[in-house]
């Protein structure tokens, strides 16, 4: 009797051991609903991308657990980053970033840094284009910069989203490279900036393509140059005679300013490589879908894609560049 019991117990132990031995072979998967944090408000660029990713995952059944998008926009996104920072080791949480990953801690001194997070995958980079109202005579960025210089310091108004963030950083960099001086007017969203430009309340903007494309097509706005090292890779005609690829780089026009905004995914710090690999797998499938490709086309995104060390290095480099640019501009938190 006793020996029988014992052997039964032994069997159970053996079975248990066999099970645990099998586990590492099974890839990690989320254990509950995945929270997808957006450190920005509803309706903005990051929010759109997050909700698109969520939609694609749901439609193509790419994850067994459901995913919810949660906006935590307080304190220029600090609310969302701090939430993820405090969720150390939690594999059921991911966050989409924009440039406020760098600008918010540098400008406000809120204690977080990208090193508190684990980089997962760069989904794309968002382009910035210099726009003017189509009724103005400026055909090239040179025309516009010359006009700004001639008008006198602070006479030309540059509109942008938020303060001490990407739009103002580009503006300051533009001033540094050209010697023209603009008055920077911060607004709450990119759509508002584009409309203010159409209405003639500001003289120029550095809107992302998706924020301004409909006004461009309607003939209300004119793109002067793109702040990238090469022209955008979209050759389909957007207006009657121009494609995104026809917009020259600012550099080729003598305005040596480059800026791209990260649209990338991070996880909390202290997560295992299995967890990171799982999300890289899911996101790679997302990037293969026609819906994603359509979205990239619509927004004329720069489709640079990175994971692992390359991505980590890119982020580290971007942080360094932001710190330099913001120090020069006097935007660093004292």
């Amino acid at each position, binding site marked *: 009797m006793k020996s029988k019991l014992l052997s039964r117990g032994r069997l159970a132990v053996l079975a248990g051991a066999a099970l645990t031995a099998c586990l590492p072979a099974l890839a990690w998967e989320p254990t509950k609903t995945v929270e997808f944090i957006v450190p920005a408000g509803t309706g903005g660029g990051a929010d759109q991308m997050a909700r698109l990713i969520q939609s694609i995952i749901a439609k193509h059944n790419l994850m067994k657990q459901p995913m919810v998008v949660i906006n935590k926009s307080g*304190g220029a996104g600090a*609310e969302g980053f701090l939430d993820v920072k405090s969720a150390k080791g939690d594999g059921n949480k991911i966050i989409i970033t924009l440039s406020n990953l760098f600008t918010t801690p540098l400008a406000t001194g809120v204690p977080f840094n990208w090193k508190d997070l684990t980089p997962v995958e760069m989904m794309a980079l968002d382009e910035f284009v210099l726009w003017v109202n189509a009724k103005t005579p400026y055909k090239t960025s040179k025309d516009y910069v010359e006009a700004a210089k001639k008008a006198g310091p602070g006479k030309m108004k540059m509109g942008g989203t938020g303060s001490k963030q990407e739009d103002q950083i580009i503006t300051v960099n533009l001033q540094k490279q050209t010697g023209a001086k603009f008055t920077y007017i911060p607004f709450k969203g990119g759509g508002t900036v584009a409309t203010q430009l159409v209405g003639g309340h500001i003289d120029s903007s550095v809107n992302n393509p998706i924020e301004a494309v409909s*006004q461009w097509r309607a003939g209300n706005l004119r793109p002067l140059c793109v702040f990238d090292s090469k022209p955008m890779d979209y050759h389909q005609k957007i207006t009657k005679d121009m494609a995104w690829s026809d917009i020259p780089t600012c550099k080729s026009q003598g305005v040596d300013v480059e800026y791209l905004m990260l649209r990338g995914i991070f996880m909390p710090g202290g997560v295992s490589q299995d967890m990171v690999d799982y999300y890289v797998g899911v996101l790679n499938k997302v990037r293969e879908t026609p819906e994603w490709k359509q979205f990239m086309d619509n927004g004329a995104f720069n489709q640079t894609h990175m994971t692992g060390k390359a991505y980590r290095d890119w982020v580290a480099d971007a942080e360094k560049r932001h710190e330099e640019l913001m120090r020069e501009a006097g935007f660093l938190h004292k």
Partner: protein
Amino acid sequence: MHELQALFGGFQVALSWFNLLLMFAGITLGVIIGVLPGLGGANGVAILLPLTFSMAQEPGGQTSAIILLSCIYWGALFGGAITSILFNIPGEPWSVATTFDGYPLAQKGRAGTALTTSFTSSFVGALLAVLLITFLSPIVANFALRFGPPEFFAVYLLTFCAFVGMSKGSPFKTIASMMLGFALAAVGIDTVTGQLRLTFGFIALLKGFDFLIAVIGLFGIGEILLTIEEGLEFKGAKAKINVKVVIETWKELPRYWKTYLRSAAVGCMMGIVPGGATPASFMSYGIAKKMSRDGDKFGTGIVEGVLAPETAAHAAGTSALLPMITLGVPGSPTAAVLLGGLLIWGLQPGPLLFTEKADFVWGLIASMYLGNIAGLIVVLTCVPLFAAILRVPFAIIAPVILVICAIGAYTVHNDIFDVYLMVVFGVMGYIFKKLDYPLAPLVLALVLGDNAENGFRQSMLISQGDMRIFFSNGLVGGITVLSLILLFWPAISSLIDVARGRKAPPAAG
């Protein structure tokens, strides 16, 4: 009559069984979302957005998808008033002004009347706004382009001026309350400098004081504390519930046609500009009070005081879709999510959407008519049911309300700190009422303070500190002058009386 033809085309698109089903589903869901404080139309639409994604890939599916989402929006607009009237808890920001007269009406035992008035007025407001969108959209869309920072500031100034002086208490208390609201609105990130203000290093204060949490606490929790003190029951509980209340109220409403037109005009302007539904409801209430013969009775529970803010809120909420479609600028938080939806579905909101996707746009416009009719039917049939909620004993309903409030406060940012904050605001609301400080100025300053400040500082950046920018063209000058007239209206109207030879009212009663 190109528009009529296009509109009938739109009705053909919208009037399929599937779309009608979506309409009623959306409205019902929206009403529920509207009833729950905290869970706003924006959240509701955002949560359902992924569901519409597959739908939008089908031919004609984009129209079905927008019908579902916009009907949630209409439902939320209707539903926000229900808890405002029954329990003094605004379900949505734009129903705060509805509590001023809706709740006293319910306390008098006329909850059914208040609800019917609110729903009917919402419908009228929406209808007038849709008519405007149908026939005047090209003209009106370009009007919105004329609004730069100084114009926006002038509009907010107009809202404040229309509202100031409406509380009966001492002016000192009104100013104290409003200043406290401004101070609370300033907490968090400052758009113009990108710096944190008044957070004192507390991480929890980063996101500032959300209007919704303050309102749930000040009104909802505050009211429950008061009720507990005054005897554990609702004053409106003994109301007779009459199924004919709808018909009886309808007989009364046409008398207020002037208020309807004025409120709808205010609402449409605020929706298109876009200033938003919440300021529209406050402004409309303030103006109605100043213009009405029963101005003194506002706040004691009169039908006109429910009608004015509800008409304006729904007119603004509806017309807010116009700048979204034609300019790609959302006129409200919910419109912002809808805009994101359009982009995800592969549509490009902007000046060309009307011509390139005429089917979609006119289907949407047709669904605005149908959706609001569907909404009116849904909510009106439920009026006796809603009013009957007041008969549930306080001991049962109060804990339920508390739980709903707590869930609502949590939902806004998914943050437990907000629930504590709600309780603090609740105690504050109770103290305010005990000491006879008005809550409305605080709420108004909290919801508009930030935007007004941004408008002012953006204007100052543009003009490099020159105040004359607020009179620099006819539009901004006109709004500013109108604001000043409204601000000094009591003095001006007594001057007019004197001039006419009538005896001026005594200065102090």
